[in-house]
């Protein structure tokens, strides 16, 4: 990787991070004085960042292909002896794609939040955290070393924690935030260990230094690095076995779910694997591990998504599943890196759109998230319905919308994997596409069609429901995202546009011959999705939905409702033994360590209590003692003298 020095606007690309960071600082330090205009400032900084990112990308596109990895050296971060760590940015096509996604979708969601959070007393705090998130996320994708990436990585973790627990007075939100933070920490251990290994092996953590000399690594260390980084990626991206935090993270405000837990932060794992591509190319084990994790996750996400009635949790499991597709893609190596990123960008549009739509529906339904209480909203909220519907079609891969191009490409590449992998990955991904169609169609039917079940209900605060379309400040971002959902896939994959753009970062997108022709696979996926839609219509759309959740359900549904027992397994395997270990250590500390210390003190205290009794107060006993002592001394002297 050759890095050329930055010139022109790109040299100022640190402003991309600095602007939202300054916004966050002003809003957090300014306190209530900034309440009136805080949301406007927060939105403005991100929009400015987007404009700057766009200009930088245009400048980057103007450079010739070999010089599109532009480095910006900022300052010396750590300097001690031989160790010299510089903080710097790397602006290359991959970073540029992420910058545009983050600031673009980020701007739209900031605008949406102005309306969504209008009546919330903590709106300023909300925008401060959102700005903090955008700054950290930009640092994550722009940093030129793993250390910088790690700072951003932890920054987005913090912002995610703060935003999930935004309504911190609700115990569920506080618990979910802690769960997200702790499960992320498990993954972060992997990333931190990988960075330590890099320091030990290369003496540097810069992308150029590590990836440039990755060929020199012994195979075992490359595999270890690959697996450790995969652990980090799994934590951040909600992949198996660390997926359980992501659905709970939906306790946060809906714009947060859209921006952080669907479009940007949770895709950081995909970015990490793609960024590490020269290393993963060296380790077959690492690559296959990534692909297997992706396949498992895309399947369990899709299965669980079918059983939930909470609109945001269905979308959350859909996110888990779609990121599984991205992992599968980047696990395929040079045959899939660009496909994974393409799906990531397209997913960023339609999933953000879907979440904003869900937020709009919740807004109309007094923040009720139970789809069994919805129904027939299509007529009441036409704009939400249309934008949500376009996102839905994009997600299930309806041609020619986004998902059709990006997801099909991944499934085709998966089929082409060698040996057992091809059929396994390909077929499972196809089945999951059918499940995706099922749960999303179910969601559409339950929310927008059928009878108006909310008419019979009163909301928890005792009022009747009066669903209404959301204000323009909320619908406008939804419309823009819907346009993205429709066009992004075609735009990105047309003539391998994105793959060619990413070539300087990810290498050429390779293709290989699979066991089935592309047209067959495409048809297979479409048929599978159509079956999913049909089954959803037969099961949900055709007959009325009960308002009460059915209790007696089949075994698979029960398992899916309990997240395929992910929480129970975590509890049994990690939490409970951890509690036991802690109790045991407390016991050892109380009885063992404290016992030794307290025992010594008690021994000394007790024996001095006994010795004290020698002080009787009788002068004549003292005199006898003195005499005895004197006799002893004399006897001793005589003994020394004469014996």
């Amino acid at each position, binding site marked *: 990787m050759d890095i050329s020095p930055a010139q022109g606007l790109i040299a100022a690309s640190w402003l991309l991070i600095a602007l939202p960071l300054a916004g966050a600082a002003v809003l957090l330090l300014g306190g209530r004085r900034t309440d009136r205009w805080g949301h406007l400032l927060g939105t403005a900084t991100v929009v400015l960042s987007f404009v700057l990112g766009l200009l930088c990308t245009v400048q980057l596109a103007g450079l010739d292909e070999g010089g599109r990895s532009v480095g910006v050296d900022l300052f010396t971060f750590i300097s001690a002896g031989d160790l010299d760590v510089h903080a710097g940015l790397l602006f290359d096509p991959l970073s540029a794609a992420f910058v545009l996604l983050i600031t673009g979708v980020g701007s739209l969601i900031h605008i949406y939040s102005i309306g969504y959070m209008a009546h919330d007393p903590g709106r300023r705090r909300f925008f401060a955290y959102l700005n903090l998130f955008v700054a950290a996320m930009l640092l994550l994708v722009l940093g030129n070393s793993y250390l910088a990436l790690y700072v951003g990585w932890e920054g987005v973790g913090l912002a995610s924690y703060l935003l999930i627990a935004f309504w911190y007075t609700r115990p569920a939100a506080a618990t979910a935030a802690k769960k997200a933070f702790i499960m992320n920490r498990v993954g972060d251990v992997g990333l931190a260990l990988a960075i330590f290994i890099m320091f030990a092996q290369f003496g540097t953590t810069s992308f150029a230094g590590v990836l440039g000399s990755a060929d020199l690594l012994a195979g075992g260390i490359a595999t270890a690095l690959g697996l450790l980084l995969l652990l980090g990626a799994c934590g951040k991206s909600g992949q198996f076995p660390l997926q359980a935090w992501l659905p709970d993270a939906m306790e946060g405000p809906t714009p947060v779910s859209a921006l952080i837990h669907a479009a940007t932060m949770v895709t950081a794992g995909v970015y990490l694997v793609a960024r590490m591509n020269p290393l993963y190319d060296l380790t077959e084990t690492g690559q296959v591990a990534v692909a297997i994790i992706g396949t498992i996750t895309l399947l369990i996400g899709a299965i669980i998504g079918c059983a939930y009635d909470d609109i945001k949790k269905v979308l959350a499991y859909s996110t888990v599943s779609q990121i599984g597709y991205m992992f599968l893609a980047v696990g395929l190596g040079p045959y899939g890196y660009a496909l994974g990123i393409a799906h990531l960008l397209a997913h960023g549009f339609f999933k953000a759109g879907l979440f904003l739509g869900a937020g709009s529906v919740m807004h109309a339904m007094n923040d009720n998230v139970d789809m069994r209480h919805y129904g027939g909203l299509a007529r009441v909220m036409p704009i939400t319905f249309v934008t949500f519907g376009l996102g839905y079609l994009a997600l299930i891969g309806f041609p020619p919308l986004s998902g059709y191009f990006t997801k099909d490409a991944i499934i085709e590449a998966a089929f082409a994997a060698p040996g057992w992998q091809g059929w396994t990955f390909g077929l499972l991904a196809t089945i999951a596409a059918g499940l995706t169609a099922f749960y999303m169609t179910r969601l559409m039917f339950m929310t927008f069609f059928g009878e108006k079940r909310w008419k019979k209900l009163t909301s928890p605060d005792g009022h009747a429901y009066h669903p209404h379309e959301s204000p323009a400040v909320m619908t406008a971002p939804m419309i823009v995202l819907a346009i993205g959902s429709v066009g992004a896939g075609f735009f990105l994959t047309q003539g391998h546009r994105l793959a060619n753009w990413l070539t300087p970062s990810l290498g050429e997108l390779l293709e290989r011959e699979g066991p089935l022709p592309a047209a067959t696979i495409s048809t297979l996926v479409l048929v599978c999705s159509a079956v999913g839609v049909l089954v959803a219509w037969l099961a949900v759309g055709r007959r009325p939905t009960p308002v009460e959740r059915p209790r007696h359900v089949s075994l698979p549904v029960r398992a899916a409702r309990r997240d395929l027992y992910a929480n129970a397994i975590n509890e049994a395997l990690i939490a409970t033994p951890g509690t036991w270990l802690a109790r045991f250590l407390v016991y050892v500390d109380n009885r063992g360590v404290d016992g030794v210390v307290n025992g010594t003190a008690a021994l000394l205290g007790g024996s001095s209590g006994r010795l*004290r*009794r*020698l*002080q*009787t*107060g*009788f*002068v*004549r006993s003292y*005199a*006898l003692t003195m*005499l005895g002592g004197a006799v002893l001394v004399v006897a001793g002297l005589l003994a020394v003298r004469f014996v």
Partner: protein
Amino acid sequence: MTLSWYLVLAAILFTIGAVGVLVRRNAIVVFMCVELMLNSVNLTLVTFARATGTLDGQIMAFFVMVVAAAEVVVGLAIIMSIYRTRRSASVDDVNLLKY
């Protein structure tokens, strides 16, 4: 007459003094026994000075007498004040300062 008789006498006097200190309760008697022990030591010192033909022991004996005189002053004063408060000169009654 050999000097060893003086030493034997001093030993006898010292023993009487020591036993007196240990067995008697009356503070005045205990005090006199202490004086007896001091003077037996003085006798020893003088005897040895005579035996070696030097003056060191005799000078030391004078020092002991001076110290003993000072000690008598302080000691008797203490015994007097204890007697005034407790109406007793028994050393066993003065046993408040203990564990």
